C-alpha cells in the first residue's frame, strides 16, 4: 500500500519569505506521525498545503496519491482536520457547530458524538462567544473525532486543553489508530508525542532536519556523541537545534 502523505521538495513562498524550502515528509497508512519544529518553521504551512487551502510554489505534495489542491473536495471526504487556534461562529452553540461541521461530511454518528461530549465534558448549550479557548478547541476536536475519516490532520490540537482533557485526547488517538486510521500530529508537547507517535519528522526553516522512528533519531544522536540512555524526544529536539 502506498503512503498516505507523500511530500517531496515542497516549497512555499510568501512574497520574498520562503516558508517551506524543500520539505520532505512521508506518512505511511496506520501510522501516527509526529510533526515537530520550532515556531515559524513551516508546520502549519505544510498542513495548509495538504488541505488544499494554499497552493505549493514548488515540489510535490500527494495525499492518497492525489493532488491536494486540484482534488480538495474528494480528498476531504477522507480526512478530518483540527487547527491549533479554533475560531467559531459567535452566535452558534457548541452543539450546533459540531452538528453543522459534521453535516458537511454527511452527518455524525450520534452515539459517538455523545460519548465524546461526555469524555471531554463539553457544555453543548453555550454560545461559542462564551466558550473559553480550551472549550473552543474541544468543539473542533469532537467534530473531527466523531467522524470516520481515514486520515486525521491535527495542528497543535490540544493547545489550551487542561491535562485531564489532554489525556482524553491521547486515549482517543490510540483508539483511532487501533482501527487502522492514519494521523499526522503537529505538536509542541513532546512528552505527548513521544508516547503517541510511531515516526517523526523534525523540520527547521522549512526543511526536513530529521525523520524516522524514535530509535532512528536516537542512533543519529548517539553517533553524534550523545549519551544513549537518557535521550527523550525533548533531548533529541534540543540536540538538533543546539547544533
Amino acid at each position: 500500500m502506498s503512503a498516505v502523505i507523500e511530500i517531496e521538495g515542497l516549497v512555499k513562498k510568501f512574497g520574498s519569505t520562503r516558508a517551506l524550502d524543500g520539505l520532505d515528509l512521508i506518512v505511511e497508512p496506520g501510522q501516527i506521525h509526529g510533526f515537530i519544529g520550532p515556531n515559524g518553521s513551516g508546520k502549519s504551512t505544510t498542513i495548509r498545503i495538504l488541505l488544499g487551502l494554499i497552493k505549493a510554489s514548488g515540489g510535490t505534495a500527494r495525499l492518497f496519491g492525489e493532488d491536494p489542491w486540484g482534488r480538495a473536495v474528494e480528498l476531504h471526504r477522507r480526512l478530518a482536520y483540527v487547527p491549533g487556534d479554533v475560531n467559531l461562529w459567535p452566535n452558534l452553540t457548541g452543539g450546533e457547530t459540531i452538528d453543522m461541521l459534521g453535516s458537511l461530511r454527511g452527518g455524525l454518528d450520534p452515539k459517538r458524538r455523545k460519548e465524546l461530549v461526555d469524555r471531554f465534558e463539553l457544555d453543548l448549550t453555550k454560545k461559542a462567544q462564551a466558550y473559553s479557548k480550551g472549550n473552543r478547541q474541544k468543539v473542533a476536536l469532537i467534530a473531527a473525532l466523531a467522524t470516520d475519516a481515514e486520515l486525521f490532520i491535527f495542528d497543535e490540537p490540544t493547545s489550551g486543553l487542561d491535562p485531564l482533557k489532554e489525556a482524553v485526547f491521547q486515549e482517543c488517538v490510540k483508539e483511532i489508530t487501533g482501527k487502522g486510521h492514519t494521523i499526522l500530529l503537529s505538536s509542541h508537547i513532546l512528552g505527548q508525542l513521544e508516547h503517541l507517535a510511531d515516526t517523526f519528522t523534525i523540520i527547521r526553516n522549512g526543511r526536513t532536519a530529521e525523520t524516522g522512528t524514535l530509535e532512528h533519531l536516537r542512533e543519529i544522536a548517539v553517533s553524534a556523541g550523545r549519551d544513549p540512555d537518557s535521550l527523550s524526544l525533548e533531548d533529541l529536539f534540543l540536540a538538533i537545534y543546539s547544533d
Partner: protein
Amino acid sequence: MSGFAGTREAFLFALKRDRLILPVCLVGLIGWMAMYVVSYAGLYGTQAELNALYESVAGNPAMVAMSGPTGGLRSLGGAIAWDSMPALTIISGVFAMFSVIRHSRAEEEDGRTDLLLASGSGRLAPLTAALLITALALTLAAVGYFAVLAIGGYAIGPSILFSLAVLSFGLVIAGTTAVFAQVTGKARAARGLVGVVIGVSWLLRAVGDTGGGTLTWFSPLGWAQQMKPFWENLWWPLLLPTAATAFTVSLAFWLLARRDIGSGLIQPRPGPPNASNSILHPLGFSFRLQRSTMLGWTAMLFVYGFAIGVVGENIEDILKSSSAFTEAFASASSDLLDSYFASILTVIAILGAGFTISSVLRPHSEESRDRAALLLAAPLGKVRWVAGHVLIAYVASAFMIALTGLALGVGLGVATGDFSQTGTLFAAGFAQVPAMWLTGSLALFLFGVSSRLSSVAWGLLAAFILIWTLASFGNLPGWLIDLSPFSHVPAVPAVSLDMAPLLVMTALALAFTVAGLALWRRRDLV
C-alpha cells in the same frame, strides 16, 4: 485616575494604526466640501441664477424631505449649506461609528484589549482613546470645511456655525456608538444598531421637516440643520448635540465601569445542544450567518420606504395648492411625484448596495476571522461555498429593493386611500436590482483578486454615492457619471422602462461574478 492610565499610549497607537486611513478620509470629506463650494460658485454665480434655484426648489416638499428646509437658498452660502449638509453629516456619522468601534469594541472582540489592560492600561483607556481619535478627526474635518468656506470668501461666523453643525452630529454619533459598544459584545451588532440610529434620525428629520416640524427636534440630524447657517444663523441649537454628546459619553463610561472586559452588558443566552435541520446544509448555514443583518436591513428599508410613501401624499397636496413652484409644473405634477419616487428608489438602492457588498463579502470576513479553513477543510468546495453567499446576497438585495418599492406604494396608498400606484412602484424597485448586483459583483471580483483588496469595494460604493450627489450639479464630465452603475438605472416610474441598460448591467454582473469566483478558486486562503 487609574482608569485612564495609558490613554496617551493607546491614543498614539490608534493614531499610528490610522496613519493612512485618517488622512484619506479627511481629504475625502474636505475635498467633497470644496467640490460643493467650487461647483456652486460656478453654477450660481449671479443673484438671478440663485433666485431661479430658489424658485425651483423652495418649499418643494420632496427637496425638503431629501435635504431639509430650503429657506437659506437665496444666498450662495445658504445654498451650499443646504445641499452639502445632509450627505456631509451622515458620512461624518458613519465615519464616527466605524472609527469608535474599530478602536474599542472590535479590538476587544479580537482579544487585544486584554493584552493592553494586562500591561498596565486602565480599563477606560481604550474607549477614551477611541473617542479622542474620532473627535480629533471630526474636528480636523470641521476646520477643513471652515477653511474651504473662508477661502471661498464666505462670512466667518456662518462658516464656523456650519462646520460646528456638521461636527456636532459626528460627535453625537461617536457618543452613541460608544454606548452601543458597551451594550453588545459584538462589533457587527454595535455597528448595526448605530446604523439604525442614523437611519431613524434621518427619517424623523424628513418626516418632521415636511410635516409639523416637531419630529425634527427628536433627530440629531435635525438639530444640525436647524442651526440654519448663512440664513437664520441660530447658535443655540448647538446646546442639544452638546448635551447629547456629554450624556452618551458619560453613559458609555458609566456602563464600561460596570461590565466585564470581553463581553457586553447583554450576556449570550444558552442555546440548543443540537442543530436544527436548517443549518445542516451549506447554503442553510450561510443563510443563518447572514440572517440577522438581512432582517435589519429589510426592516430599515421597509420603514424608510413606507415613510417616504406617506410623505409623498403631502407632496402631492402641496403641489396641487398654488405656488410659483406648482404653476411651473402644474401640468406635470404627477410626473414630478414619479421622478421623485424614482430618485428616492435609486438613493435607497445605493444605500442597499451597502448590504449587497457586505453580504457578498461575508466569505471575506469568515476568511479574515480564520473560520473559513474549518469549513473548507471539509468536503465543501471553495467555489460552492462562496457562490452560496453570493446567491444569498443577490436574492436578498433584489427582495429588499422590491420590498422598498412596495413599501413606497403602500405608504402612498395608506395616505391617499388610492393604491393604484402600488404595483407600479413595486415593479420600479426591480429596475434598481441590476445596478446593485453589479456593485456586489465588483466586490466579489476584488475579493477574488486578493483578500486585502476586498475592502476597496467600500471605496467604490463611496465613489458611486459621490457621483450620484455631484451629478445633480450637472458639471461632472459625462464619462465620470457613466462609471457608476446607478447612473444607468432608468428613472421608472417617471419614464418608460428601457431594458437595455438593465440587461447590460446584469450581463456585466454575471461576468464579474464568474471572474471573481474563478480568481477565488485559484488564490490562497489567507
